[in-house]
């Protein structure tokens, strides 16, 4: 019996030794270390969101929820719940801010990038370098003058600075346009301009060339710029934190921060809301990974 066991163990060991060299063994160990380190927090976020208050507040952590309990989600969405969070409106606010930001950034940067990539004009390089410089500016440095400036104009022209989603979209544009412009300019420079030249000689206007030739040729880049700017707006915390005071207008990050800092801690609710905010980003990212990866590198590397 024991003999057989050792025999069997040895064969498994032999099998592994034959199959894996030491190098491969280390490779797999390191890979598993990375994967566990990356994925555990995400597992913990999703699984905690399906726990009950009892499971969250127990003496020791519950690694696998007993069943998929929707208590946390009920607090977020069910008006009958005693501490109903009305998270639906926060999702709506986030969409209302991120989609226009991404759309406007893409449209404006198509025009701007076309001009920079196709025309020679005075101040072109200064403009592009100036845009690059913005990468180095601390967001905190800009928020004080922005806040002061916008407050000044607000009392001058009679609009609200705080609790105004339009103001938030405008400040997000200042953060996303430089990135979008830079990415698209680099992309347009890689498209050969012979077709555009031919269309111009045939008498097409530049606007027509842009809509009929340049845009269709750069759909992948446009999608990636859209998603990239959408993600910036969707994830943004500091500006929304400063510019929004009313719970009705909170974007998701601010509402989650509010729930987290509630005197009675309810981590499962925080995790449920975080899951809702993270899931679309992960899905978008996984489905368009090929485009986005290039965009992430292009956003960081010059040229």
């Amino acid at each position, binding site marked *: 019996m024991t003999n057989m066991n050792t025999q069997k163990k040895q064969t498994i060991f032999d099998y592994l030794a034959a199959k894996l060299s030491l190098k491969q063994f280390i490779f797999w160990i390191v890979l598993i270390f990375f994967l566990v380190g990356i994925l555990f*927090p995400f597992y913990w976020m999703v699984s905690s969101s399906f726990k009950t208050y009892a499971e969250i507040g127990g003496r020791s952590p519950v690694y696998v929820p007993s069943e998929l309990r929707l208590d946390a989600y009920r607090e977020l969405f069910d008006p009958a719940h005693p501490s109903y969070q009305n998270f639906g409106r926060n999702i709506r606010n986030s969409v209302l801010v991120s989609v226009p930001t991404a759309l406007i950034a893409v449209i404006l940067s198509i025009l701007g990038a076309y001009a920079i990539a196709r025309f020679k004009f005075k101040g072109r390089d200064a403009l592009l370098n100036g845009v690059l410089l913005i990468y180095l*500016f601390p967001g905190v440095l800009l928020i*004080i003058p922005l806040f002061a400036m916008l407050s000044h104009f607000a009392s001058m022209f009679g609009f609200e600075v705080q609790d105004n989603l339009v103001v938030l979209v405008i400040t997000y544009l200042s953060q996303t346009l430089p990135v979008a412009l830079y990415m698209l300019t680099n992309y347009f420079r890689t498209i050969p301009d012979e077709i555009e030249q031919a269309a111009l000689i045939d008498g097409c206007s530049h606007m027509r060339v842009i809509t009929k030739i340049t845009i269709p040729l750069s759909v992948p880049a446009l999608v990636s710029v859209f998603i990239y700017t959408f993600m910036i707006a969707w994830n943004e915390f500091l500006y929304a934190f400063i510019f929004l005071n009313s719970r009705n207008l909170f974007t998701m990050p601010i509402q989650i921060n509010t729930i987290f800092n509630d005197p009675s801690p309810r981590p499962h609710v925080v995790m449920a809301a975080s899951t809702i905010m993270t899931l679309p980003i992960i899905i978008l990212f996984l489905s368009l990974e090929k485009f986005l990866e290039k965009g992430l590198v292009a956003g960081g590397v010059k040229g």
Partner: protein
Amino acid sequence: MKNSGRKGKSITLRQREERLAWRLIAPTAIIVLGLVLFPAIFNVWISFHKVNLGALRDVFSAPFNGLANYKNVLNDFSFKFQNFQNMGVVVTSIIYSLASTILTVLLGLGAALLLNRPFKGRGLTRAVFLFPYVAPIVSVAFVWRWILDPRQSGVMNDVLMKLGVIDMPQAYLSTRGLALLLVIIFEAWRYFPFAMLMILARLQAIDDALYEAAEVDGANTWQKFMHITIPELRYVLGATFLLRLLWTFNKFDDIFLLTGGGFGTKVLPILTYEFSFKTFNFGKGAAAAMLQLVLVLAFMLVYLKFVMKEED
């Protein structure tokens, strides 16, 4: 006659194109100039004026304050280095950004080397490796806080107690020293995918012939790594390091969400935020932001002049 006419026409064509270019770029330029460049300059102005909450109605007539704001920041007790228990924001910021950037680049290098080998499921693994970087900061920061929960039911406490590393539950993010270390580790966890992507792109561009030649000469893996891979990666490592260092130095959200800037983790952006939006002393906040910018620019000049130049 004919000649000069053609010349005149070509000039107007060029002018027309130039005008069109400016019209196309105008909306972007106006937004960038108005909401980035002008505020950046305006910040300098604010830092020399007495601007508080009441002054916001009519900022431009706020009274001149000389260097008072700068003096206030420099004399602020949380700014100055006092002792190793209270290092002050400048020293904390430098330790935090240097340590987390080095760790980020090292992890990124490791991950890039890992994913540079072909194996089954590499595409998916690569995508998964980017999760920490693309996920919203609020979600990941709060998951980390929940994992590091000070109660006995926190995962980190549970695991370490079962392993016998600690006897009592620890309040990780509210213990001086430990909090800073964990914030640094969090930064590396979140941003290594960026370094990984940059390094991976360069790794895949290295000519295989170099390795083949080295193999013919009898080089082992370590020698190939040290004499081919690292020299080929030098430029991208240097650039990634610089970029990440600057971005980390300017980062506000991560520390604010993890510790709120408490327990020895207060960095310059947090101090700037507190001056302007907690005590509503915008002039002092602007001065703190200017000092931060000066530090960033000084570092960049030194780095570009000495480190990057040597690599050319």
